[in-house]
């Protein structure tokens, strides 16, 4: 089980470091935009009075689109109270330290999860070639992860702020997963099978999810300003690029070290 142990240790070390770095980056990039959007989301919900929040988020945005400015003014200081989600009555972290602590924990877990995937590939690759993985090769795998998990699903389902209505969650999750699998398969065909038919099949796989199209609502009406959404898309994509390059480079470097050590002991 020495390979499994090396993969897990490398992933935990790299995931912990990258998760912490990304948490700090998010505090300057994505999180302030999420908090701003929640002011609009909450204003739309309170204006809607007694209708359940899950029923018609689009209608809420539509009915009160004219009240943007007023909503922003009085909502500015109490977004801390924050029932910003639709899990009515369920526990949620308090704003401030508690919320950020859970965000940090979730970031670290996400990074460990993706690092486990990367290091799994590193183990198979270095086992097949006989040479240990270099940080540079790891970085390229990280860029592939960025393409597979951020760029491809993001084309159909751009990063979304709270308060922006979207198609039913499960249908979006299924499309997200399908686009990830198709993109990973397409890239693998192009990179590892150096033949023309494989390359053609790879490109077809890459484009297929977008030809089918992501689930979307016929008309999206929200009082979250589009400039805020645009900033958010940029912030998410750039943060993700840093996340994946760091994770690829760091996971490969730590895994190569641990794996060599395991070989020597064996």
């Amino acid at each position, binding site marked *: 089980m020495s390979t499994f142990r090396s993969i897990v240790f490398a992933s935990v070390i790299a995931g912990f470091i990258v998760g912490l770095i990304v948490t700090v980056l998010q505090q300057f990039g994505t999180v302030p935009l999420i908090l701003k959007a929640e002011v609009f989301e909450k204003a739309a919900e309170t204006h809607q009075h007694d209708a359940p929040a899950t029923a018609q988020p689009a209608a809420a945005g539509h009915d009160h689109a004219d009240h943007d400015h007023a909503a922003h003014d009085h909502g500015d200081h109490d977004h801390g109270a924050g029932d910003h989600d639709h899990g009515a009555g369920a*526990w949620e972290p308090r704003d401030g330290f508690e919320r950020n602590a859970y965000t940090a924990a979730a970031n670290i*877990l996400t990074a460990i999860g993706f690092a486990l*995937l990367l290091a*799994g590939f590193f183990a198979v690759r270095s086992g097949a070639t006989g040479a240990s993985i270099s940080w540079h090769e790891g970085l390229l795998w990280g860029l592939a992860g960025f393409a597979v998990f951020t760029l491809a699903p993001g084309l159909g389902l751009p990063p979304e702020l709270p308060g922006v209505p979207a198609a039913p969650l499960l249908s979006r999750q299924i499309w997200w997963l399908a686009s990830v699998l198709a993109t990973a398969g397409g890239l693998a065909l192009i990179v590892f099978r150096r033949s023309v038919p494989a390359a053609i099949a790879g490109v077809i796989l890459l484009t297929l999810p977008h030809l089918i199209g992501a689930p979307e609502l016929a008309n999206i009406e929200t009082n979250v300003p589009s400039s805020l959404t645009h900033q958010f898309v940029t912030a998410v994509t750039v943060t993700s690029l840093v996340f994946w390059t760091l994770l690829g480079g760091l996971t490969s470097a730590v895994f190569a070290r641990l794996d060599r050590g395991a070989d020597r002991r064996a």
Partner: protein
Amino acid sequence: MSQSQLANAQVTLPVAAGQVGRLSQALMAMVLGVFVIGMVGFSHIDVVHNAAHDVRHSNAFPCH
């Protein structure tokens, strides 16, 4: 079977077994990774969603 072929067979067997072990161990780790990502990013349990809310949005995982 000559002596040298016999020696060869004895050498290659453990290496092949080691390769299979490496592949299955890598797969096990990857399944664990998928489980962790699925839980943090995709679980429909309200409490999990609320704890990881900002991370789901920041990673562009489908949310709400």
